[in-house]
């Protein structure tokens, strides 16, 4: 009989996953607007953003759980836009593990093997054992899911998703239900397994530090759009928009106006601040200056020419263990400083920032 459901189209790109101009709407509300992404083969790619930004919707569009209104989805170069989820060869891990409660651990991990053509028999059993070892859960096959801790359940969910040998691994906030310490341990495990298998992986999280720690590249998502796609260091040091600057890590943002170009300078609330030599600006431009709390140094009077000095007042200090967070006020604005000094000064202080540590948002970061 003829099969009207299209098989994968022949290779059109060599990306592991590609989204071309995807738009997803939920009863008239646009959840994703014209999103295009390309994830390399074997890459660990993270979508990060606040809740409701569209990152999970993006993942679900790749898995086939959401049908895009427009646009195309490609996996391993083949077009899968019209394929049902069960025919896309993706492995999915959810936040709440989603283990089948009426099946043992072994049956859970083996479930996806039932649909391989031809079914494997003994080979299936071996495959399950292999995966249980991979996630460090060997010998737990006969347990019921409810007998396992959250972290163990998530390992089993990972094993289950990997068992059929998917082309892409999709992880939707897999660590959000776990406590902080376990989260950090398990994210290392996930990264190691991903490296070992070399599997293309898309990871969704709202936790920017997790995103920075685990990924090859990060996409910052906001309001159904992609704000920036770059390696973690670039996203952190050179945010492309005000949203990225404020969402990823902490930042002090100042709006200023360019007053000179050689060397470039700007005024913020009447105070002159030197800009990096490389800044491509014209006199009269509005600019936004990003200054990370840790690049502001507290109390040291750096007299080097390429530094700007501000006089501020310390409002209060928070002790973080390895550092202090110092809330200052400068010119009626609050300013955040992070210092590893053992005893940061109080009262009126001098803040110094190296000109090259100031990042400029083009277009005022709109």
């Amino acid at each position, binding site marked *: 009989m003829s099969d009207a459901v299209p098989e994968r189209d022949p290779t059109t790109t060599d990306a592991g996953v590609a989204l071309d101009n995807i738009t997803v709407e939920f009863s008239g509300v646009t959840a994703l607007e014209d999103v295009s992404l390309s994830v390399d083969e074997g890459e660990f790619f993270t979508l990060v953003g606040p809740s409701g930004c569209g990152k999970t919707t993006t993942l679900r569009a790749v898995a086939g*759980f959401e049908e895009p209104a427009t646009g195309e989805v490609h996996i391993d170069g083949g077009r899968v836009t019209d394929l049902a989820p069960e025919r896309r060869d993706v*492995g*999915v891990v*959810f936040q709440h593990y989603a283990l*089948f409660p*009426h099946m043992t651990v072994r049956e859970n991990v083996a479930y996806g093997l039932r649909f391989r053509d031809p079914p494997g028999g003994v080979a299936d059993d071996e495959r399950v054992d292999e995966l249980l070892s991979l996630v460090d859960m060997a010998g737990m096959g006969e347990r019921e899911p409810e007998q396992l801790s959250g972290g163990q359940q998530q390992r089993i969910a990972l094993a289950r*998703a990997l068992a059929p040998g998917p082309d892409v691994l999709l992880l939707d906030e897999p660590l959000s239900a776990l406590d902080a310490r376990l989260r950090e341990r398990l994210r290392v495990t996930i990264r190691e397994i991903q490296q070992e298998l070399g599997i293309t992986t898309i990871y969704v999280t709202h936790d920017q530090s997790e995103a920075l720690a685990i990924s090859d590249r990060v996409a910052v998502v906001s309001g159904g759009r992609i704000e920036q796609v770059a390696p973690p260091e670039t996203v952190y040091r050179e945010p492309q928009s005000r949203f990225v600057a404020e969402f990823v890590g902490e930042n002090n943002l100042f709006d200023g106006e360019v007053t000179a170009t050689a060397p470039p300078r700007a005024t913020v609330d009447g105070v002159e601040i030197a800009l990096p030599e490389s800044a491509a600006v014209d006199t009269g431009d509005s600019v936004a200056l990003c200054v990370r709390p840790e690049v502001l140094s507290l109390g040291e009077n750096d007299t080097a020419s390429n530094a700007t000095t501000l006089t501020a007042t310390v409002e209060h200090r928070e002790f973080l263990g390895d550092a202090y967070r110092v809330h200052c006020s400068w010119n009626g604005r609050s300013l955040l400083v992070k210092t590893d000094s053992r005893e940061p000064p109080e009262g009126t202080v001098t803040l110094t920032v190296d000109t090259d540590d100031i990042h400029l948002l083009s277009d005022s970061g709109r």
Partner: protein
Amino acid sequence: MNVRRWGERLAVPTAFVLTVAILAVVFYYPVLSVLREAVVRAGSLTAAPLVDVLGDPFYTGVAHHLFTAPLSIPAGVLDWIRAGFPSVEFGLFGFTAFQAFLSTLASVVVGLPGAYLLARFEFRGRRTLRSLTILPFVLPSIMVAVGFLAMFGQNGLLNDILGALGLGQVNLLFTLEIIVLAHAFYNAPLVTRLVTTAWESVDARRVETARALGAGPFRAFRDIVVPQLLPALLTAALLTFVFTFLSFPIVLALGGLRLATVEVWLYARVQDLELAEAATLGTIETVLSLALTYLYLRYEARQTTTGGGTTLPRRALAVGWKTLRDPVRIGLAVYGVGVLVLFVGPLVSMIVESVTGPNGLTGAYYEFLLNQQATTAAGTTKPLPAIANSLAFGVGTLALAVPMGIVVSVMVTRGGTGSRLAETLMSAPLAVSGVVVGLGLLQTLVFGTTIAGYRVTAGGALAIVVAHAVAAYPFVTRNVTPALAGIDSQLVDSARSLGASRFRTLLDVELPLVWTAVLAGGAFAFAISIGEFDTTVLLAEGVESYTMPVALERYIGNRSLGPSLGPATAMGTVLLLVTAASFLVIERLGGRWEP
């Protein structure tokens, strides 16, 4: 592989189409044919039969002027006022609405204190009592009528007790009071259930906030609790009105033609083979009940439940000697006695009557159930075939209603257009009386009908089983839908991404997780089939297809064993055992019946 994939892909849609087809053939087509009969004469559209009925003072009482001479109404009203407001006749429809109104009132009066008791007091057996409030839904109404005869009849338990106490006799038989009481037996538990649930969902923190802001206990009750109870009370009252407006076996058995309602009169017309008049009557009744149901659904849809929060604390019901000094607790004790008489009385009387004769204990009536097998006289109603038929139809209904119910649940929980269609499909049978469905089936499938050039007849057992399935599957759906909806959608997504088709996911993941709900729904379906009377009584013919409820109704009329209800009570007790067993299954598995 492709064939299998296509099969799995098409399984649910195919089953849904089949379900819709069954509904179309056994429900929509027959009911529409009744409506057609009422407005089409000799191939052309006419309002004449409707006007005949509506303009007949027998049916509509004083309102018939509206249809015969609307212009004379103002003068008529003036005459009536000048004559000093003489009593006015409201006809059959008026009486039906009047008894439904009284029944609703009685159900609310009997049901509300029960909600107060269950929601605000803690005592041994509270949970059991709460789950017992579903029991009336599965008790066959004709059996309850037998219980009421055994309790309140001429030779009933009540009169026996009153006689023994030297207090004389009461005769409630063939009075409006006994009909209203029997309706309260059915619907007061519904009031209790819905209001208790609403009461339990009142957030204690809100009441405490009101108290902290300065409201006294009564003000806090009036301002915080009452507004949350009223919607539930109104829902229950509207439903009770619809149910009692359409009530059939209770009025038939306890009121007879003297206190006939529209439904009973309709049945009598069918028995007299006045099918055209019956169709007209059925049409008017269906329009009225559809309008009432529409009102109910509109009202229900506007309600929002505010979940969460802390339930109001329960007080201990018995507090030692002080119990006797607390007027509220004494009031509840009196209420308890009344409830015992109304709810337990009829069932106990029926069982007692079934084993006592004029000369004390006897097994004669149960022997009679077996004995009559031997006699072959025409018109005798053999009990054993009735029991066998009921059980067989129950199993048949189960086999049909469970898949139908599951399919509709799956469509409802998947959302989209199919979901709305499925919900609408499900609500319609609720609003159409069993007698109208039975009449429609008689006129179409049983007497034969021509579909696409083929003469189709389906009578007796097959028609009954399918009709029962149509009445019963909504109960499966009501149980399975919330269970399916409660499954974490990530489980379904996981199975899909692992390679399972939508149908395989249903078989491998969803159904195994909701099997208790499926079983509870099945037990409901079985109980509905066992107790169904309204449609069955019109379709049952000969030995092959009459059921326990139908036999029961014949025994009430057949007093060949003296003025005794003996055979009827014996059969009723058998029916009670079977339905009580279904109830146990439902209760154990947490079955639900939410209108």
